[in-house]
C-alpha cells in the first residue's frame, strides 16, 4: 500500500487549501502567528494542522494543548478531529485515542492541568478542587456571613447596610450609585475578576493604590481570597483564580513546562494577562506555540481581554522565548460575497490606529490585506433610505418578508438581526414590532430577562400556587418592586388559565393541600415529641416511640401509613442491628422527616405540569417542528431547578417547608438572584437558533457565526470613556497598551467590524436620520454610496455559492440510533433539547457499570504491560 499523504486525505474530504492555509498546516517547528481574517477557514486549518502533527509527525494527542474560546468550539474541533482521524485509521489501521488530549477552553484546561498527575504530581495530596462558576461565586459572596466579612475588611461595619452598599457602589458608578447589596456584590466580583486576571497581589500593590477607595476594595479582595482558602472540605476557586492556580502548578513543576509538544491557542485576541503567562510557560520547553486570531474582532475587554497579547505577539515571543514567530496571514474570505468584504475592510481602515509619536507603529495588525474569494459585482450590501427609525424598521421588515415569501432563504432563523445591545433598547422594540406587524416572530435570547418570557412565567406561576407567594417586605428598591411585580404577573398568568383549564386549578390546589398537610403533620409530630420529652436528635426507638407517633392527634392517614410502613420498619430494624452497611441507626428526626416529606421534587412537579394543555403545547410545538423556542426555555428551566436541588436538597421535607423556609429560599434567594442577574435565555449548543423565528442577537453573541442574511438596523454606538475599573487596573499595573482615551473608539470599531463580517450573501443596514437618531460618523459617507432597499429586487438575491463544509457530525449507534429507535420523543426531549431528567436511574446505572468495567480493563491491561516489561 502506498504511503498515505495529507493530499490524499484532503482529496477524500474535498478540501483544497490555499497556499497560506497549506503553509500554516505544514508548519511544525517554532512559534507561529496566524492572523486570520473573517471567514478565512481558520477552523479547518487548526483541524488539519493538528491532524498533521498527530498522523505525520508522531505527536501523541495527549501532548497537544489546543484551546478555544468556547466549549462548543472545543467540542466541534474534537468531533472534527475524530472524524478525520477515523478516516486515517481506515487507511492505515493505526487507531488514535483522543481521550487524554487537551482540547477545551483555557478555563477547563486549567482545571485539567491542576488535576493531571503527569503535570501536578502533588494533586492527590491536597483537598479536592472545587471550581465555582459565575452563579455559584455570586451566591458564595452574597451569603450574609461571607459578605459581612468583606464589609469588615472594607472597614464599613459602623455604617447602615444600605450606606455600606452605597459607599462601595459609588466607586463603580459615581453618578448614580445604588444602595443595593446585589449591585455591590456584582460590582466587587467584576473587579475581583480583573484583579485575578491581572495577577495582582493585593498586599503588593496596596501602597500604589491611587485612592482610599481602591485600598478598601483591595482589602475586600484579599479577604475574599482568604474566604475561599478557609472553606472546609474542598479547595475552592472561582473561574479567574483557577488559571492562576494552573499557572502556579506549571511554574513549580519544571517537567510540566516540557510536557506539551505543541500549544495551539485559538481566539488569542481575547486572552488576558494570566492566560498569556500560562501559555508561554507551557511552551517554555517546546517553543511550539501557535496563536490564531483577529485583533479586529477583539470583543472582550470587559472580561479582561487585552488585544495587545495578539497585536504584540512577535515582541512577546521575543521576550518569553527569545525568538520571532513565523507570521502567516490567512486573508482570503470565503464566507462573504465580494461587496460585503469590501465594505467591512473599508470600514475598519477609516479609523486611525497610529500610535502617537511612533510613526509606522499601530494598535492593530495593519497589513492584513483581506481579499474576498467571491468576485461577483452584484449588490450584496444595501441600506434603507435615510429616515426616521420607524420608517427604517418598516422598510426592513417588508424586505425580509419578501425574501421569505420568495423562498430565498429556508427559514426565518437564517436572517439574523444584530444589535450593539438588546436590553432596554427602543430601536430593538421598534424593529420587533415592525416584524411582528408583517407576521414574523422574533427570538431574542438577550433582549430581556429570561424569567420574563412566557415559559418561566407559567411554570413559576404554577409553583407560586403550590408553595405560596412570599410576603412583600417594606423595601422600595426598583429590583425588589419589579421582582414582586413579576411574581404577581406569574401567579396571575396561571390564574388566568383556570377558567379554561379547571383541571389545572384542581391539580395545583391538590398539591397546595399536600404541602399544607405535611407541614401540619410535621408540627403535630413535633408536639408529640415535646409532650413525651423526646429530643428529635435522639436515636429512634420504635418500641417506645412508634405507637405514640402513630397516634398523634390529627395526623393524616398518609403520615400514619408512612410511620407504620413495612419498608420503613424493616429498614429501622436493619440499621439498629447494623445490618445496613455502616449506616447509623435512624434518629427520631429522620423518622419525622420521612413521614412528612413530599413524594415529589420540584422537577417532578415541572414534568407533571406538562400534562396540562397550556404547558403541553410547549412540547407539542417542538414535536411538530413548528417552534423550538418554548422547549428550549423549558430545558433551561429544568437546568435551574436541577441546580437548586443540587445546591440545597432533593427531597422537600416538611421541616424544609416549615416557616416558609423552602419558599423563601426558592423565591427570595435563588430565583430573585437569577432575576436580578438578568440571566438570559437558552442558547442551543448544536443548532444555534430555533426554527421558525428571526434571531435578534447582540453582536457579541454573533461572534464566530455566519448567516445568509444579516441585518444591522442600528449603526450607532457611542464611545464611552474608560471606566473606573480600567483606570484603576492601569494605575496598579502600568502598561503601554492602548491609551485609555482611545480604547473605547477602538472597541466600537471592532464591534461593528464583527457585525459587518457575518453575512454570507446579503447585508441590510439601517440608516437612521431623525432628531436624536443618527448613525456613527464613519458610516455616513459609506451608506450614501450604497443601493437602497427601495430599489433592491429580491429576485436578484443570490446565495453565496461557496459553502464551507462543516466537519461532519458523529452519530453514536447506542446514544443516538438505538435511543431514537426506542422512542423519538424521548430522544427529542432529553438528548436534543437537554431537559434534565428528574429520576434518571437507568442512565446513571448504565454509566456507573460501564465506567467501572472500563476502569477494571484499564487496570488489567496496564498490569499486563508492566509484567511484560518486567520480563
Amino acid at each position: 500500500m502506498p504511503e498515505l499523504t495529507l493530499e490524499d486525505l484532503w482529496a477524500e474530504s474535498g478540501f483544497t487549501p490555499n497556499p497560506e492555509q497549506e503553509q500554516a498546516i505544514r508548519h511544525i517547528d517554532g512559534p507561529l502567528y496566524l492572523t486570520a481574517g473573517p471567514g478565512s477557514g481558520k477552523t479547518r486549518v487548526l483541524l488539519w494542522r493538528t491532524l498533521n502533527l498527530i498522523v505525520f509527525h508522531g505527536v501523541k494527542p495527549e501532548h497537544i494543548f489546543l484551546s478555544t474560546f468556547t466549549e462548543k468550539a472545543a467540542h466541534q474541533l474534537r468531533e472534527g478531529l475524530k472524524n478525520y482521524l477515523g478516516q486515517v485509521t481506515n487507511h492505515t489501521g493505526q487507531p488514535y485515542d483522543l481521550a487524554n488530549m487537551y482540547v477545551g477552553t483555557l478555563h477547563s484546561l486549567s482545571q485539567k492541568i491542576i488535576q493531571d498527575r503527569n503535570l501536578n504530581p502533588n494533586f492527590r495530596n491536597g483537598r479536592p478542587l472545587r471550581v465555582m462558576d459565575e452563579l455559584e461565586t455570586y451566591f458564595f459572596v452574597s451569603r450574609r456571613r461571607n459578605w459581612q466579612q468583606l464589609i469588615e475588611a472594607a472597614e464599613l461595619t459602623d455604617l447602615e447596610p444600605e450606606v455600606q452598599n452605597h459607599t462601595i457602589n459609588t466607586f463603580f458608578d459615581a453618578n448614580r450609585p445604588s444602595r443595593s447589596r446585589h449591585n455591590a456584590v456584582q460590582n466587587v466580583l467584576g473587579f475581583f475578576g480583573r484583579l485575578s486576571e491581572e495577577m495582582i497581589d493585593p498586599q503588593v500593590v496596596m501602597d500604589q493604590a491611587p485612592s482610599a477607595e481602591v485600598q478598601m476594595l483591595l482589602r475586600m479582595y484579599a479577604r475574599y481570597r482568604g474566604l475561599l482558602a478557609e472553606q472546609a472540605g474542598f479547595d475552592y476557586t472561582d473561574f479567574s483564580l483557577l488559571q492562576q492556580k494552573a499557572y502556579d502548578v506549571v511554574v513549580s513543576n519544571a517537567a510540566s513546562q516540557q510536557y506539551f509538544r505543541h500549544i495551539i491557542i485559538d481566539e488569542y485576541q481575547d486572552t488576558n494577562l494570566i492566560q498569556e503567562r500560562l501559555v508561554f510557560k507551557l511552551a517554555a520547553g517546546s517553543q511550539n506555540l501557535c496563536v490564531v486570531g483577529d485583533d479586529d474582532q477583539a470583543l472582550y475587554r470587559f472580561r479582561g481581554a487585552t488585544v495587545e497579547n495578539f497585536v504584540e505577539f512577535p515582541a512577546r515571543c521575543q521576550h518569553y522565548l527569545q525568538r520571532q514567530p513565523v507570521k502567516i496571514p490567512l486573508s482570503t474570505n470565503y464566507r462573504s460575497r465580494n461587496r460585503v468584504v469590501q465594505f467591512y475592510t473599508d470600514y475598519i481602515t477609516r479609523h486611525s490606529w497610529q500610535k502617537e509619536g511612533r510613526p509606522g507603529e499601530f494598535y492593530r495588525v495593519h497589513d492584513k490585506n483581506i481579499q474576498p474569494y467571491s468576485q461577483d459585482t452584484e449588490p450584496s450590501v444595501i441600506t434603507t433610505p435615510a429616515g426616521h427609525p420607524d420608517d427604517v424598521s418598516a422598510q426592513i421588515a417588508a424586505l425580509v418578508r419578501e425574501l421569505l415569501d420568495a423562498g430565498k432563504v429556508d427559514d426565518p432563523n437564517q436572517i439574523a438581526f444584530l444589535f450593539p445591545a438588546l436590553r432596554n433598547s427602543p430601536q430593538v422594540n421598534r424593529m420587533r414590532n415592525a416584524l411582528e406587524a408583517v407576521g414574523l416572530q422574533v427570538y431574542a435570547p438577550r433582549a430581556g430577562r429570561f424569567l420574563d418570557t412566557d415559559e418561566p412565567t407559567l411554570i413559576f406561576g404554577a409553583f407560586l400556587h403550590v408553595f405560596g407567594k412570599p410576603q412583600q417586605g417594606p423595601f422600595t428598591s426598583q429590583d425588589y418592586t419589579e421582582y414582586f411585580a413579576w411574581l404577581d404577573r406569574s401567579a396571575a398568568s396561571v390564574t388566568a388559565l383556570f377558567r379554561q383549564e379547571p383541571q389545572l386549578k384542581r391539580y395545583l390546589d391538590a398539591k397546595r393541600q399536600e404541602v399544607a398537610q405535611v407541614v401540619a403533620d410535621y408540627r403535630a409530630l413535633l408536639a408529640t415529641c415535646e409532650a413525651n420529652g423526646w429530643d428529635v436528635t435522639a436515636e429512634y426507638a420504635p418500641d417506645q416511640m412508634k405507637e405514640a407517633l402513630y397516634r398523634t392527634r390529627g395526623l393524616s392517614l398518609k403520615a400514619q401509613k408512612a410511620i407504620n410502613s413495612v419498608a420503613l420498619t424493616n429498614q429501622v430494624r436493619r440499621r439498629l442491628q447494623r445490618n445496613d452497611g455502616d449506616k447509623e441507626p435512624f434518629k427520631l428526626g429522620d423518622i419525622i422527616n420521612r413521614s412528612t416529606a413530599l413524594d415529589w421534587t420540584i422537577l417532578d412537579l415541572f414534568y407533571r405540569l406538562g400534562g396540562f394543555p397550556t404547558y403541553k403545547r410547549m412540547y407539542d410545538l417542538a414535536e411538530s417542528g413548528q417552534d423550538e423556542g418554548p422547549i428550549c426555555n423549558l430545558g433551561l428551566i429544568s437546568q435551574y431547578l436541577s441546580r437548586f436541588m443540587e445546591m440545597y436538597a432533593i427531597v422537600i421535607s416538611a421541616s424544609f417547608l416549615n416557616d416558609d423556609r423552602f419558599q423563601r429560599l426558592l423565591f427570595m434567594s435563588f430565583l430573585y438572584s437569577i432575576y436580578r442577574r438578568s440571566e438570559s435565555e437558552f442558547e442551543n449548543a448544536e443548532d444555534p437558533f430555533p426554527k421558525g423565528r428571526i434571531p435578534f442577537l447582540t453582536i457579541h453573541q454573533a461572534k464566530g457565526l455566519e448567516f445568509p442574511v444579516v441585518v444591522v438596523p442600528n449603526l450607532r454606538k457611542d464611545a464611552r470613556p474608560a471606566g473606573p475599573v480600567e483606570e484603576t487596573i492601569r494605575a496598579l499595573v502600568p502598561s503601554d497598551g492602548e491609551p485609555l482615551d482611545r480604547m473605547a473608539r477602538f472597541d466600537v470599531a471592532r464591534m461593528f467590524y464583527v457585525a459587518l463580517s457575518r453575512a454570507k450573501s446579503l447585508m441590510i443596514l439601517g440608516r437612521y436620520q431623525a432628531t436624536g437618531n443618527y448613525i456613527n460618523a464613519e458610516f455616513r459617507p459609506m451608506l450614501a454610496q450604497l443601493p437602497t432597499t427601495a430599489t433592491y429586487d429580491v429576485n436578484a438575491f443570490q446565495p453565496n455559492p461557496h459553502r464551507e463544509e462543516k466537519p461532519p457530525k458523529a452519530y453514536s449507534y447506542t446514544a443516538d440510533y438505538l435511543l431514537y429507535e426506542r422512542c423519538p420523543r424521548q430522544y427529542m426531549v432529553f438528548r436534543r433539547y437537554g431537559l434534565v431528567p428528574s429520576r434518571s436511574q437507568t442512565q446513571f446505572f448504565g454509566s456507573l457499570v460501564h465506567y467501572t468495567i472500563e476502569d477494571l480493563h484499564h487496570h488489567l491491561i496496564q498490569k499486563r504491560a508492566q509484567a511484560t516489561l518486567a520480563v
Partner: protein
Amino acid sequence: MIKRTAAQIKADLLKRDQEIREQMRLLALEQEASELELLILERFERNYETLALESGRRISPDVKEAALKQVLMYWRKLPEVATTVTQTEVRLSLPNQRTSTGTVFTIEGVVDIIRDNDRTVMYDIKTHDIDSVVSNIELYQQQLNVYAHIWQTLRQQELHETCIIATAFPKAVRDAVTTGDDAKIDAALASWNPALTIPFDQQTLEQTIIQFTQTVEAIEGGQFAPPPVSRLQERVPGSRTLYATRICINCDSRFSCNAYRAYAEGDQTTAADEFGFYNDYGTAIDQSEWLSTNLSIAPPADIDDLI
C-alpha cells in the same frame, strides 16, 4: 513405621511440596482476585461520586447495590475475558455517510477487543440481561455487523468472533434470589452464561446502514413523534413487561406525551383518582428507597444567611 524407604519419603515430600505450591498458587490467585475486587469497589465508589457530582443526583441504595453486583459478577463469571482484553473503549467510526439531503455524518461505536495469538474477538458490554439480548438478537446483530465491518473492511484487521456480554442478572437468577435458597442461587449463577456469540453476516450490513441513515434524516428533519399507542401496549421482546411499563414509566416526559396519555386513559387502574395519572412515583418500595437515599442530604439550616 520407620520402614519407609528413602524413595517413599522423597516421594511424599515431593507430594507435600507440590501440594503446598498448589495451595500457595491458589492463595496468590485468590489474593489477586480479592485485590481486584477491592479495586472494583474503590473505582465503583469513585465513579459513583463523580457521577453524583456531575448529575447532582444519587441513585437509591438498592439500585447502586445492583450496579455493583453487575460489575462484580462480570469479573467473577468472565475473568478470562477481563484479564485478556487487549484494548478497551475502542472507538470505531464509519465516516462519510451521506443523507439524501447531502448531510455528511459519521457512525460511531465503542467496543472492547481481545487479541490472542491467533484470534481477535470483539466485545460489546451491555447492562441488559441476556434474555432480552436473545429476544432482540437482530438489533445486536445489526450493531455488531456495523462494528465488524469497520474493523475488517476499513481497518483491514482480522476478526474471528463478535460477542455481547450482558451484565444484568437473567430471570433465572433473579427468581432464584427471591427464593432465598443459596443452593438454588448458586445453581442459577453457575448455569448463567453472560456472554453470547453473535454471528456476523455482511448481508444485513447494507440494510442496517440504510436504516441508520434514515434515522439520522429523521433526527435532522425534526421527526419526533412518539411510537403509536399500540406499541406501548405490546410486550417488550424478551420480557413480560409492556413497552409502557418498561420504557415510558422511566420517562419524565410521559405526562405531556400523546401516546402515553392515550395508553393511560385505557388503563383502568388510575381511574378512581382524578390525578392518579400524575401521582405515580413508582412502587412504594421504590419510593421508600428513594427517600432513604435523598433525605440524607439535609436542607440548609440557616435560610437567612442565604437570602
